[in-house]
């Protein structure tokens, strides 16, 4: 008879979040020291703590390294076209309002090619959780500049340094109507998971920017060192300020003397986008039973909030 091993050294076959990952797809395609894996971990941790049935979680992504996240998460997942994750997710979230729909994608996918959808989904307050992984460049295709690339940063399409003003994404999201706006880095794993959890339970549009190292695409041309260097920078430079004045929280990632303001900036309650009059789909009889007055009233009450 074998003696049971002491509890402290017990070998477990499964990690608690194993069932939330598509282990049969590993090894993944991400580079060493990339931050996307940390974000995936925070997301699946949030799923496991959400109290929402796993089958109710849906993950949608666009194109890019961050867009591959959906493919590693073992919930219903949709890897769509470049820039269109948000309207694809809108279709799911509006048709099945009971589902918890999260978009994980990159800064370029969401704010450049998908920028129009981002601002309109926020304006409508569509019940979506947006996790925008910002690594300041298009990493998958070899490090081209995007709308978040800092002024003077080099990339394969800004060989003399970028001279465009980059987006301040939390400020943008707030300005166009997001109900929840946060910024963290992949160093802030616990805060990030907590914010994702909050977003999962919030009815409305939640926008979470996550700064992430991209040692291959962004780090190398800008002498940023490896991912560990970036994590050190996050630790040294990040200032948590939930009350920050959002127009002032631009990031200059290449200036190591400037602070990076992170935190949960916005958390307001606004009625979520709900274009269905009355009862759920197919329950036609129930909808017909709603009298016209009720419909008018519900329309008015939504109208007042805008």
């Amino acid at each position, binding site marked *: 008879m074998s003696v049971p091993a002491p509890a402290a050294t017990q070998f477990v076959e499964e990690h608690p979040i194993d069932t939330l990952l598509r282990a049969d797809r590993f090894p993944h395609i991400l580079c060493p020291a990339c931050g996307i894996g940390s974000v995936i971990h925070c997301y699946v941790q949030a799923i496991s703590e959400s109290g929402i049935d796993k089958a109710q979680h*849906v993950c949608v992504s666009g194109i890019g390294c961050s867009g591959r996240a959906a493919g590693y998460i073992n919930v219903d997942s949709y890897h769509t076209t470049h820039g269109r994750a948000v309207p694809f997710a809108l279709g799911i979230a509006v048709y099945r309002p009971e589902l918890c729909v999260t978009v994980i994608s990159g800064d370029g996918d969401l704010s450049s090619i998908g920028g129009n959808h981002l601002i309109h989904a926020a304006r409508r307050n569509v019940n979506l959780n947006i996790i925008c992984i910002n690594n300041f460049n298009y990493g998958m295709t070899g490090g081209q500049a995007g709308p978040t690339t800092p002024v003077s940063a080099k990339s394969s399409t800004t060989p003399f340094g970028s001279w465009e003003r980059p987006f301040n994404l939390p400020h943008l999201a707030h300005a166009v109507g997001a109900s929840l706006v946060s910024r963290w880095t992949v160093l802030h794993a616990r805060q990030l998971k907590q914010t994702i959890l909050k977003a999962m339970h919030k009815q409305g549009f939640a926008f979470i920017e996550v700064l992430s190292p991209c040692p291959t695409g962004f780090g190398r041309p800008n002498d940023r060192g490896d991912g560990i260097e970036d994590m050190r920078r996050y630790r040294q430079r990040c200032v948590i300020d939930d009350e920050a004045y959002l127009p002032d929280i631009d990031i200059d990632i290449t200036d190591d003397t400037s602070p990076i303001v992170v935190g949960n900036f916005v958390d307001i309650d606004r009625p979520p986008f709900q274009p269905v009059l009355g009862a759920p789909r197919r329950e036609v009889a*129930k909808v017909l*039973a709603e009298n016209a007055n009720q419909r008018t009233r519900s329309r008015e009450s939504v109208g007042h909030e805008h």
Partner: protein
Amino acid sequence: MPGTVSATASTPPRVMTGEHFMVGDHACAEGALAAGLDFFAGYPITPSTEICERLAHRLPQVGGTFVQMEDELGSIAAILGASAAGARTLTATSGPGFSLMMENIGLAAMMEIPCVIVDVMRGSPSTGLPTLVGQADVFQARWGSHGDYGIVAYSPSSPQECFDLTIRAFNVADRLRIPVFVLMDEVIGHMTERVVIPPAQQIPRVDRKRPSHEPGDAVFLPFKADADLIPPMAHAGEGYNVHFTGLTHDERGYPALNAQTHEQLVTRLVNKVAVHAPEAILTEEVDLDDAEVVVVAFGCTARSARRAVAMARQQGVKAGLLRLISLWPFPEERVRDLGRRDAVKRFVVPEINMGQMCREVERLTHLPVQSINRAGGAMITPQSILEVLVS
């Protein structure tokens, strides 16, 4: 239920059974409602706007969802998302918007997400003639997104067919798991005629094939096709943990970026429409039995062609009409057969474009194919077709 009765009196039912004098765009919207449309996302554009407007009014009243999106890129993406979650979905547009939808039409083909897309064709290219007729989007509907894939497209010639073919489009889309197009032209979309809507229980419905396995059953492979080349479809939120991607994928739905998987997948996407073509193809034949000259026409041009054929017969010319009700798949066998007949001497293809469908006819026959074209803005008149028939 008294409440139901009073509400019904003020709210038309989902299926507006009865006879109506209805414009084509509205008939299309009513066809979608009768087919069980759950979710519409669109961006208004002339001359399809009346479809959007009608559904903005009608769809929420019968428990469906209407969303006016920020653009056509968003419209097509939203209907794919909703369809992936189990909805019957529609969008309606015209040339410029149709062009914007092309990338995600390819995604629909690749992910095998059913949806119906109405394109009311206007004078083109570019902004062209927003309020006037064109028929120049037929090849875009077939080949507009990059790569090889199969689709089905219908082209109504009357408001009644706008109603009937929209229903059929939903059934074919769900049956084959493909995007299906209703290619109306501006004349048909803006023409008002009698439309007979049958009782709700007489509306045919073919639903998409669903998994026979329970959620959690590891045996279920979401993209493993049955013998009919169509995989059963699991929807978001059902617990199957499906993965859908626009990347080349294996039967699990996982990206598999190699030539062998790509060959298998793309071949199946093309073949599944090809093998089911007989179910999808619809034509109407007028006076073809003894015809020496065969007119091939669709949409509003088929109405002119019908008149021209009758006029030619009065003048002793044995003309006949093959009306294309489905444009894609093209009725190859039928055209080949007609071309082999001893009586048939030539084909005439009138269309409001610079010569598109005539190419399909040309590749299927050695007989002369006479093209009658105009760039757009007005119908081709019966007289101008007659001149070619009697020449």
